[in-house]
């Protein structure tokens, strides 16, 4: 019990540090929010969502996730670039706390930033796209966090992996997108199913279960391999 509590303490310390940093600058949330808003507006101009309610329901799940994916990619690199200044990362590597605690703290912090963005963006999205969901809208309260965690946990890992690469801004989407495609498929299908009401609840359940499985598997291997990539030299 004691090692577990100690580990949780380390994670919470890292989380507190990241939240405080974000609270002082608010760079990540503001950047993501405005970026996602821009993506939604661009798609809104491209598709005329108010004119074709049925098509809108079919495509808006995909648009919402694409906006969130791109927005979170812009913030994930920043979350590690912060640690490079003043050799903070080197200090973290020498710290006696396990490396995976650093990773988990950062991933949870990034997750909460993206959730804030979602909470602000969802009403705007519904208004702009004139959305009227035909399925059980409360299921989105399960799908959104699960999908966000799938993007954020791998995204935080690959941002750390590409931290010292020649052009890390480009590398992150190149690595994150192929690995995330099954999760993206699941969250887009589930969201579209809820919005259109076409999908059987059993099918939506299966997509949600796949997301849960994806989250568990990739969280585990991220935790297992984080120390390796942090000390990759």
């Amino acid at each position: 019990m004691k090692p577990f509590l100690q580990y949780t303490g380390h994670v919470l310390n890292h989380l507190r540090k990241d939240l405080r940093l974000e609270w002082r600058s608010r760079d990540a949330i503001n950047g993501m929010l405005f970026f996602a808003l821009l993506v939604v507006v661009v798609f809104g101009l491209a598709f005329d969502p108010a004119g074709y309610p049925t098509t809108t329901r079919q495509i808006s799940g995909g648009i919402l996730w694409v906006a969130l994916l791109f927005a979170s990619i812009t913030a994930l690199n920043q979350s590690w670039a912060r640690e490079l200044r003043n050799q903070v990362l080197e200090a973290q590597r020498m710290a006696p706390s396990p490396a995976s605690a650093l990773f988990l703290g950062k991933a949870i912090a990034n997750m909460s930033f993206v959730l804030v963005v979602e909470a602000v963006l969802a009403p705007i999205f519904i208004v702009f796209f004139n959305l009227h969901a035909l399925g059980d809208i409360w299921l989105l309260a399960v799908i959104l966090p699960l999908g966000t965690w799938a993007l954020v946990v791998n995204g935080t890992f690959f941002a750390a992996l590409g931290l010292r690469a020649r052009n890390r801004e480009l590398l992150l989407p190149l690595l994150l997108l192929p690995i995330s495609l099954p999760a993206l498929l699941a969250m887009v299908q589930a969201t579209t199913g809820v919005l259109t009401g076409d999908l059987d609840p059993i099918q939506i359940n299966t997509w949600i279960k796949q997301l849960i499985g994806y989250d568990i598997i990739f969280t585990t291997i991220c935790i297992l391999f984080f120390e390796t990539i942090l000390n990759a030299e």
Partner: protein
Amino acid sequence: MPNRPIRDKIKPMEQRAPTLRKVAWLWFAISVAVLVVGFRQAIFLVPTDAAQGDVGRIFYYHVPIAMWSLLFPYLNFAASLAYLYWRKRNPLRALSADAFALASAEVAVVYTSITLITGSIWGRAAWGIWWAWDARLTSLLLLWLLYVSYLMLRRFSSTGQTQTLAAVLSVFAAVDVPIVYMSIRWWRTQHPAPVFFGGPDAGMDPSMLPAFFWNIAGWGLWGIFILLFRFALERRRQIADQEAALQAIEASLEIPR
């Protein structure tokens, strides 16, 4: 001479393994010969497919290459695990595991690309469309994307870290592949079922078997040949790097007279 440079002890590859070179040439000759037989079987000897005409002959290239393209990712995964295991314990052996991982990833990308291209040509002839978002096509495309991103990472990452980061990404890709396969199969399907073990209608006419098996053998031999060739090339590059590093160290140790 007591102070003989260490690099003189590293002989060039040609002098170190003359037998290996002979085996490589022999292997090359055999795989070309088998491919020639396979070509003759597939293009001239097999009777024309009743439903598809001569276009059906692309089957003898598409399916064998597709079967082999599924093998190389496993080799890449195994070599990457070996690299991660030996990284601290035996760095020199780890380097050769890494060279093998790189070579197998490149061959995997080549074979998957050929599968996608031949499949697309065949799909245009048989289904009337170049591409369908069907289960097998999509999962192979995702496999291709994963290994292209692996090669991208190797190109972009900074020198000292490349091997470790690539090995970790390879583990991620290997975990991702079965998930991709299951989720996409759950999503949709249009491609014909597997030829063998695919249900009661599976299997092929006995007249097709010789051409099919010659091509499986030929493309397998060829794939392993280019894999080992690329491996030897990467080993040489690594050895050249080590020699250069050694030279730099020796130069820094030189005592001025």
